[in-house]
Every structure is written in structure tokens, then in C-alpha cells.
């Protein structure tokens, strides 16, 4: 809400308080300052003039020539607007002056007539957008008066945020109440003095429903639609409200001033009792914006007899609208239920200054005051006649007395508050309350909806004590550097992947159906009911689709790095293992890499890797794993494996099926995998059996065996390890050569005894033992020409 300093000053004397102090006060009371600005209109050489004569321009039809008294002189000024007559008091930009946007005004020849300046509209003076033309000022302002002096020349504007629990602060009165405690200054409640002179011809009441607790109204006769006063237009335009006419402007003005939304009906368009009821399903009303609104039983309507004439609290009806010819008014000032108004306004997308105030809760006791202030303002500018106020109240809303134990304040806030502070705060905030022994008994005022529990009053005290006046203390928690297994496993795996040049990514959790089915065709998907993007309304069942997307996206962006990983949640519709009231959710680490890895030295050619690289990566990520081939949708028929640890599946990896690779138009083979983070235990990942280092020299020999095509090479490695189990060994397959139906495996054996240096003879014996055993056990043949 926009707060104008000069307007706020009506309620609380802040003229002597600096803008900085007021800003600080507003902020410390919980009004977040979104913007603030110094309003210093620079009106030099703009004065008030009185039009003495008007005559036609000799050479132009669309403009007129005026003789205007500007105090010291009478000037001939050409003017294109037609909304004024002789005698009008108007603002005049004299020669050598500046108007809106720094536009310079000087003597100017307009088709043969010299114009000595310009008669200005409100918009030309940067006041507000007007549709009428020239800004007409009050008749009694003397010609020659400096325009700055009739305009609040030095003002300040804050745009503040009001939290949803404080509807009562959506008015100048409400903000003044808060500041009155901060600055310890009394607020000036504007008095009303009324002389009703007509009798009501219409009956009004609050109906039979609990959603309208109070319905107040007044009838006005002898009214004329015109501009509202300069002051009201100035204030409303600065708080961002469109200037319409006196009746609309004043209802808006009262809404901002005291927080009571008002509505004006053309009384001559009403015929029966005006009341409130719930709409019937499918009933319609045409609102002021000419829209025919279809209603339901949740909506509140104002009725004339049984006929709906307005959407209560949200928008008036077109049929009973005030028009230029209106002479008699019925002004409504009501209290409507918060939730009803909220539902209707959100449902119809009609959010207005009034509906926002109703839905946050207006003062349930201010309907009469709102009408009084309306009349006081209108009668200042027009000689109207008005009736007695009619207020029909059910009095169903009451704030109960609440007891706060004083000890609770210290317990929650950690500070002791003096009785004098408590008393002062209660009094300034107009909270009916007193200290009784060790308790504070209080009742919330009619405008507060956030003060019905003891803790609510503690918050009030904390705020008015000033949050920044509390001391600070740093309590220590229970866990000494214990981030928990999940977080630590995540960090552990991340570190390994990063050291292998995998880049972490974060992708959105939404995918299209295809991205789920391609890897998880089992159809147990979770969908978003009200997805923003209807084509991506699935929660992902795997991370692989997003990884492929990112892989392709970066290739298209000419970004060259082909290894990515992501750690995030995947979803399926069976019940969750931990929380049985929600869909199944698992944190998965997904990774992708390509057969063609870019080396980071751009002078060098790319490195080619294959499934073995990924296997080695898995071994680095998770120790002591077993792999088992598995057929998986989206994966290569042969290169797809489940990863087991302690006989439990902890993930899978493989090569993207060549068909999908083709469909995605990816040039190189792609390898993908997923690891189920929640199944891993950090302590187990770190379980490493230390292998002592032998102090003796190694012996090394390469052997080559002819093996069958389908032979599993690791069997040889295992067997040699078994044979040399007392040694420190490095046994590796270094060659796998296949030609037609023959296959040769090259094995390099590096072994060290823990006890001695092998001589040539012993070395030969070891070699014999190994080759004999392997030949016998696997029926394979040692190729000749092996040496050590």
C-alpha cells in the first residue's frame, strides 16, 4: 500500500519527524518498504490564472484564444481544450517554465497568434491522468498564486508491504495506529457532525445469512456528479487510484482513509428492500465492467427485493450504477465474511481494493464511521441532503477475553518487559487489556484478527519492543558434525564423480510421458494434476532422460564435455517405503558418459572409452560390487548390468541401446547408469582392507592363452590370484584379441613374495604352475613364445 506523508499526517502528527525515522519505524513494525520516493514537483514559473476572455482563433478552428490574468499581467494564451469558460481558474505555465518530462514552455507563435505560455491539464503537470482537459482549480484562489503553494509541494511516498494477517493496516488510520505507539503520539480520530434532513425511502438490512454481519447505508439527495476536490484527487492519484468522479473518488478515499469499502448505488434505480443473500446456483448478475457473471451458492449478492444487483464486496452491478445523470444515492457500508469474499473474488478473478480488504478482514465495528466520513467529505464540496444512517447489525462477531501469563513472555522472547511498556503498548494499540497480578487479560479490538491467543500478544510486544533490540545468543545443537548417512554418501559419490571429470547438473523434475516409458515402460507413473505445461505433466521415473537431454543440449550449444551426473528424486505411484501416505520416491544418482571423451587439452584428440571405463567407474564409486547382466528397456542387449552390493541391488548401468542412440541422433555410443543413494552406507563404502606392501623385488611375466570365444576372462585372473594368494599381486588382462573363431587373451602377472627374492629357477616354477593349472582347469592352451 502506498502511504503519502501529508495524508498520514491527518491522523498522526509526523510533520516534524524525518522521513528516515518514519521509514525505520514502518520497517520495524513489519511494513516492508518496497519503494520510497521524495515527491518534489519542480513547478517554477507555473502560476494560477483566471480566464478573463475567450475568443476564436483567426486562423484555426480547433483552438481558442484566451486573455488570462496571471496576477502581475494579463496574457494572451492559445488553448486547445474546451472544458472551461470565462471565469475559470486554471494553472498557467508562463513563458520560460517547464512541465512534465522537462518539456520547456516559452512564447510561441501559433498560426499567427503569439501564445504567452500554456494553460495546463493535470496530466501535463504530472498530477494524474485526466480525461476532461484543463485542470480547473477552486474559484477562490487568487491569480498569480504560485502553483507550488496550492499543491503539497514537498511530500514523501512509501510503498509498503502489508502482511496478510494485518488487513487492519490497509488504511491510513491503521498505519497511524501502529506508528502512534512507535512514536508515542496520539492519533487524531476525525470527528463527525451530521444533520440528516431527509427520511429514508428504502429499507436496507443485512439479510438472514451469517456471512453479512452488518449492513449500513445512507441515502443522499440533491447530488451532482462532478470532479472531486483537488486534495482528494492529489491523494488518490499518488496512491495509484484512477480518478473518476466525486462519488467514486470519495468512496475510494474513505476506503484508503479508514479501511471501510463503500459502494454507491443510484437510488432511483432501486425499488424494494435492499438486502444480502447467497446467490442461487446459475443465477447471473452483470457487473460494472459489463460482464455477465454466473454465480453459485458460495457467492454473496446484494439484492433489490429478490433481484441481485451487486456482487457483495467484490463489484457493483451495471444496472444500479451511478451515472452522470444520477441525483440521488444509496451508499452501502457493510461487513462481509472474509472467506466468502475471498472465494468469490478468486473464482471470478475479480480482485479489487475492496475485495482485498474484505478477505483480510475489515473492522467489524466501523461501518457507521465509514458512512459518516463519506458524508463529511462529500458535504464539504456539495450542498447535499442526507438521511439518518441505517445500520443493521447481527452482532455475531465478538472477540473473547484472552489471558496471557507474564512469565510466558520471558520464556519465549528471553527478555523481561516492564509493566509500563506493556501498559503503554496496550493503550496505544487500543487493545482493551490490563495487568492482573501475574497475568495480562486482553480482548482484541474489532479490527484485529490476529490477536486471539496468548502468543499473539507476545508477538505484538516483541514487535513493538523492536526485533533489532533483542540480544543475540548462539545455542549449540546436539550433533557434532554429524550430517547423517544420506548427506555424507551424496558428498562421497559427488567427490568421486567430480574427480573423474563428471559435471553435476540440476534438471527440472517434470518430463513428458515418452521420457518415462522409454526406460520404465511399467506405467506406474506419478502425474501432476494441474501441470503448468500440459505436455510435461509427468514426474520423472528415472534420471536418464534428463541426462540425455542435457548431453544433447550441450553438444548443440557447442559445449564439449560429455560426462554428467545428477542426484535427485525419481517417482513412481506405488506407496513410498518410508512414508506410506505418499507416492514412492527415491533419491537416485544418475550419470551419463560418451564413448568419445573430450580431452581438456584442445590440441589433443579425444579419448575413446567403452563399457570397461564405466565398469571401472562403478568400482571406484562403490567397493566390493558384483555385476549381473540384466535386460533393461532402453539399454544394449549385452551391455546392461545390475550392480549388487551385499546381495542387494544398489544400481545398474550399461550402454544406451543402439536403436535409441540412433533415434536421439547421437553420434557416439552413450553409457548411462543409476545408483540408489539411499541403499548405500558410508561406513561400508569406506571399508577398505589394507594390503601390505612387499619389501622384495617383483617378478613379471606375460602369458597368452587361446581361449574359447565365450570364455569369461576374469576367471583366469581369479584363478591366478588364488594360486598366488600368499603374494602381493597385480594381475591384469592386457590383451583380448579375437579373429574369426580364435581368441587370445594376454595376461600380465606381476607378483612379489612377502618373504624372499625369487631366483630364476623359482620364477620358472611359478610360471609352470600357473600355466599348468590354467590349462587343466579351463581347458585352454598356453600359446608358445611366452616369456618373462
Amino acid at each position, binding site marked *: 500500500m502506498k502511504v503519502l506523508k501529508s495524508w498520514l499526517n491527518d491522523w498522526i502528527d509526523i510533520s516534524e519527524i524525518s522521513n528516515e525515522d518514519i521509514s525505520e519505524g514502518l520497517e520495524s513494525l513489519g511494513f516492508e518498504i518496497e519503494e520510497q520516493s521524495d515527491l518534489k514537483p519542480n513547478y517554477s514559473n507555473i502560476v494560477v490564472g483566471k480566464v478573463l476572455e475567450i475568443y476564436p482563433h483567426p486562423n484555426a478552428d480547433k483552438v481558442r484564444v484566451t486573455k488570462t490574468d496571471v496576477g502581475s499581467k494579463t496574457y494572451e494564451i492559445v488553448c486547445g481544450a474546451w472544458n472551461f469558460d470565462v471565469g475559470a481558474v486554471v494553472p498557467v505555465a508562463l513563458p520560460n517554465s517547464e512541465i512534465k518530462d522537462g518539456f520547456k514552455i516559452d512564447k510561441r507563435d501559433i498560426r499567427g497568434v503569439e501564445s504567452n505560455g500554456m494553460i495546463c491539464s493535470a496530466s501535463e503537470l504530472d498530477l494524474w491522468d485526466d480525461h476532461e482537459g484543463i485542470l480547473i482549480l477552486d474559484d477562490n484562489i487568487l491569480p498569480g498564486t504560485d502553483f507550488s503553494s496550492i499543491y503539497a509541494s514537498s511530500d514523501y511516498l512509501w510503498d509498503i508491504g502489508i502482511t496478510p494477517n494485518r488487513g487492519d493496516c490497509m488504511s491510513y488510520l491503521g498505519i497511524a495506529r501502529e506508528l502512534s505507539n512507535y512514536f508515542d503520539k496520539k492519533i487524531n480520530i476525525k470527528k463527525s457532525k451530521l444533520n440528516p434532513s431527509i427520511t429514508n425511502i428504502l429499507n436496507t438490512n443485512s439479510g438472514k445469512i451469517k456471512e453479512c454481519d452488518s449492513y449500513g447505508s445512507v441515502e443522499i439527495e440533491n447530488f451532482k456528479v462532478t470532479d472531486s476536490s483537488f486534495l482528494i484527487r492529489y491523494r488518490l492519484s499518488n496512491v495509484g487510484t484512477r480518478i473518476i468522479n466525486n462519488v467514486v473518488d470519495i468512496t475510494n478515499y474513505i476506503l484508503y482513509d479508514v479501511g471501510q469499502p463503500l459502494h454507491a448505488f443510484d437510488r432511483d434505480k432501486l425499488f424494494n428492500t435492499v438486502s444480502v443473500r447467497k446467490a442461487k446456483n446459475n443465477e447471473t448478475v452483470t457487473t460494472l465492467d459489463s460482464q455477465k457473471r454466473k454465480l453459485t451458492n458460495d457467492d454473496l449478492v446484494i439484492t433489490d427485493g429478490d433481484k441481485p444487483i451487486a456482487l457483495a464486496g467484490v463489484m457493483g452491478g451495471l444496472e444500479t450504477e451511478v451515472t452522470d445523470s444520477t441525483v440521488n444515492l444509496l451508499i452501502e457500508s457493510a461487513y462481509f465474511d472474509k472467506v466468502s469474499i475471498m472465494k468469490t473474488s478468486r473464482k471470478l478473478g475479480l480482485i479489487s481494493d475492496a475485495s482485498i480488504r474484505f478477505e483480510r478482514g475489515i473492522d467489524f465495528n466501523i461501518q457507521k464511521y465509514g458512512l459518516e466520513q463519506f458524508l463529511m467529505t462529500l458535504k464539504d464540496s456539495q450542498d447535499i441532503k442526507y438521511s439518518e444512517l441505517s445500520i443493521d447489525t447481527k452482532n455475531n462477531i465478538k472477540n473473547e477475553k484472552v489471558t496471557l501469563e507474564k512469565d510466558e513472555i520471558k*520464556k519465549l522472547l528471553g527478555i523481561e518487559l516492564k509493566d509500563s511498556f506493556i501498559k503503554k503498548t496496550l493503550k496505544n494499540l487500543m487493545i482493551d487489556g490490563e495487568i492482573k497480578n501475574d497475568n495480562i487479560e486482553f480482548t482484541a479490538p474489532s479490527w484485529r484478527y490476529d490477536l486471539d491467543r496468548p502468543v499473539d500478544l507476545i508477538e505484538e510486544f516483541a514487535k513493538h519492543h523492536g*526485533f533489532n533490540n533483542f540480544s543475540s545468543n548462539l545455542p549449540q*545443537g546436539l550433533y557434532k558434525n554429524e550430517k547423517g548417512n544420506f548427506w555424507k554418501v551424496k558428498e562421497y559419490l559427488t567427490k568421486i564423480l*567430480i574427480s573423474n571429470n563428471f559435471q553435476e*547438473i540440476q534438471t527440472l523434475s517434470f518430463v513428458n510421458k515418452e521420457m518415462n516409458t522409454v526406460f520404465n515402460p511399467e506405467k506406474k507413473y506419478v502425474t501432476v494434476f*494441474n501441470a503448468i505445461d500440459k505436455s510435461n505433466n509427468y514426474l520423472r521415473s528415472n534420471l536418464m532422460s534428463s541426462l540425455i537431454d542435457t548431453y544433447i543440449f550441450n553438444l548443440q550449444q557447442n559445449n564439449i564435455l560429455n560426462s554428467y551426473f545428477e542426484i535427485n528424486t525419481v517417482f513412481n505411484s506405488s506407496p513410498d517405503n518410508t512414508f506410506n501416505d505418499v*507416492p514412492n520416491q527415491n533419491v537416485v544418482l544418475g550419470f551419463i558418459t560418451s564413448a568419445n571423451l573430450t580431452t*581438456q*587439452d584442445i590440441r589433443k584428440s579425444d579419448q575413446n572409452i567403452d563399457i570397461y571405463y564405466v565398469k571401472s567407474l562403478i568400482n571406484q564409486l562403490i567397493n566390493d560390487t558384483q555385476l549381473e547382466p540384466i535386460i533393461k528397456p532402453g539399454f544394449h542387449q549385452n551391455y546392461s548390468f545390475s550392480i549388487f552390493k551385499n546381495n542387494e541391488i544398489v544400481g545398474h548401468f550399461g550402454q544406451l541401446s543402439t536403436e535409441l542412440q540412433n533415434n536421439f541422433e547421437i553420434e557416439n555410443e552413450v553409457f548411462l547408469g543409476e545408483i540408489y543413494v539411499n541403499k548405500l552406507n558410508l561406513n561400508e563404502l569406506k571399508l577398505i582392507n589394507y594390503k601390505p606392501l612387499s619389501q622384495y623385488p617383483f617378478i613379471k611375466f606375460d602369458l597368452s592363452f587361446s581361449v574359447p570365444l565365450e570364455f569369461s576372462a576374469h576367471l583366469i585372473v581369479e584363478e591366478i590370484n588364488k594360486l598366488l594368494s600368499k603374494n602381493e599381486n597385480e594381475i591384469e588382462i592386457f590383451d583380448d584379441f579375437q579373429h574369426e573363431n580364435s581368441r587370445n587373451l594376454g595376461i600380465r602377472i606381476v607378483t612379489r613374495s612377502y618373504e624372499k627374492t625369487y631366483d630364476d629357477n623359482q620364477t620358472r616354477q611359478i610360471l609352470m604352475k600357473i600355466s599348468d593349472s590354467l590349462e587343466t582347469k579351463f581347458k585352454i592352451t598356453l600359446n608358445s613364445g611366452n616369456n618373462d
Partner: protein
Amino acid sequence: MPEVNTEKIFASFLLSVEQVTSIDEFNDLEKEYLGKNSLISEERKKLSSMSEISRKKYGKVLQELSTQISERLNQERLSFQSKFFKEKELNDNKDITINWYKDLGSREHVLTSVMNEVVDIFSAIGYTVATGPEAETSWHNFDALNTPDWHPARYESDTLYLDENLEQLLRTQTSTVQVRHMQNNKPPVYIVAPGRVYRSDQLDATHSPVFHQIEGLAVDENLTFSDLKGTLEYFVQEFFGKEIKTKFIPHFFPFTEPSAEVLVSWKDGEWLEILGCGMVDPNVFQHVGYDKNSQGFAFGVGVERLAMIRYKIDHIKNFYENDLRFLRQF
């Protein structure tokens, strides 16, 4: 008895030294002047046939010459070597302004590194990590957190639901983890809960349907508003630096009372909101089955916001496009 002219030999040696062009030639010189077949060795062989006096005298002359050559040789060798390597390095002069290695290594996503940093800051003062489901019940996301069923936050325009009865949703805040954690653990509680949250927004410069929060919760005897202040001031200073000032301004959240927003002083004197916090509302304790006299505080911080402030990132979209040009800057 003809004796060699030692001065001549030394002079010839010096002449050869001057002509040396590679370090290996010093070995050749050593062989030539001091080796088995050198003049000095030849002369030495003659010593046995000499008289004792002559032998001693001539032997001494040869020894002196040999020493002189050997010392000079070593000296020259060292200086040549040192000069040689200096020159070698001077000639190896690459243009270091070229970046042949584009970026070395890979990185965590910037959001992950921010989350890890925040978790570390709190783990250092005794908080552990808690997690909860991202697909949640409306009860955990709203009701338990004191947000009544008519509250605007619950509208379908703001929240992504999983069913037409609006019973399950994608959590809009990590505060849900508070609820889950308290339902399953008795006080005292000191947790931080990092994770994804969801809103009904299109991905653009300032909005994302997915973003990250870190929720903190402490429930313990005697925790007061001052403890909340001290904890968050500690966090801000650890994350942004000791010179950063904080201020607390009152705010409203349904699940805390009193509630506050924390602002930090930024360069050019601007104050930026970085987190929301407050004392846990008694209704929340009641919903999770805690004693009504329980006491504690909660806070929530936006991970994207922290990253955007620290690195002056202006588009939230950057975080989720995963363009390497962005990711590899952090």
C-alpha cells in the same frame, strides 16, 4: 730427461675448454687430458724408470698439472652446465596467454555447492540433515503448518497437485520436513532440511516451477527469540562474511509466531531479504503431537536466492538449463 711443457699443456687444455659446445665434450676432455691414454698418464708411466729425486720432482709436477686441469675442468663443467640450462630455459618460451586447457576438472552444480556450504555451517553448530518426501500430502504441507483450507497459497494457481481431490501435492516448502521429523522424533531437535520445492510457475528469468530451500528447525528447552537471532546472525556471517550486517523485521508466516524476515546489508548500502524465520507456532507443535509448552524456532532460506545474491546471477532459468557455459563458471 725431457719433461713435458706443463704450461703448454694447460694452455692447450684451456683452448679446448673454450671450444666446448656440449656438456658431453667435458667427458672427452677429461679422457684426453686425464684419462689412461692422456699425455699425463704417458708421462707417469715413465716415472718408474727415473731416479728417485727426479721421480719425486717430476711426479709432483705431473700431479700438480693433473690437479690443476681436473679442478679447472670441474669448474668449467659446472659453469657450462649452469649456463647451458639457463639458456635452455630461456629458449623454451611458450606464450602463456593461450588457454590450451579449456577448463580443468568438473564441478558440483552451483546450487549443490551452496546447499553443502549451508549444511556445513549448521553442522558445525550441531545440526543434522533431515529429509522428507517431495510428493507430499496437503496435510503436511498446509494443515499441519497452520495454513487453513481457504488460504490463497492452497489455490491451484499456486500449488501443483497430484490428484483432483487436492490431497497430494508437490511440496511448496521444505517446512514439511519439520512436520515429518517431529512426528517421528522427540525433542530436542536440531535439523536442517535441504531440498527441492515446487510452485505453479513457468520457467523464466525470475520464476521456476522447481527451486530449492533449506529449512532449519531447533526445538529444545528454553530456546528463545534471542537464540533464533544469534543463530541466523551466525549463519549470515559465515556465509556472506563477518562484515555483513543483518536486521530482523517482523513478518507473517502461518507456522511461526513471532515471525521475522532477515535482511542483510549489501554493497552500496542496499538491504536484501535473504530468509524467513520465527518461533514455532504452538499450533504446529500441537499438530505433530508435541507438548504444547514445547519451544523452538524455524527458518527457511532460498538456495537460488543465496546463489543469485552471492554471484550476481540475474536469471533463475540459468540454474536449470545446465548450459556448461554457465555451470563451469563456479
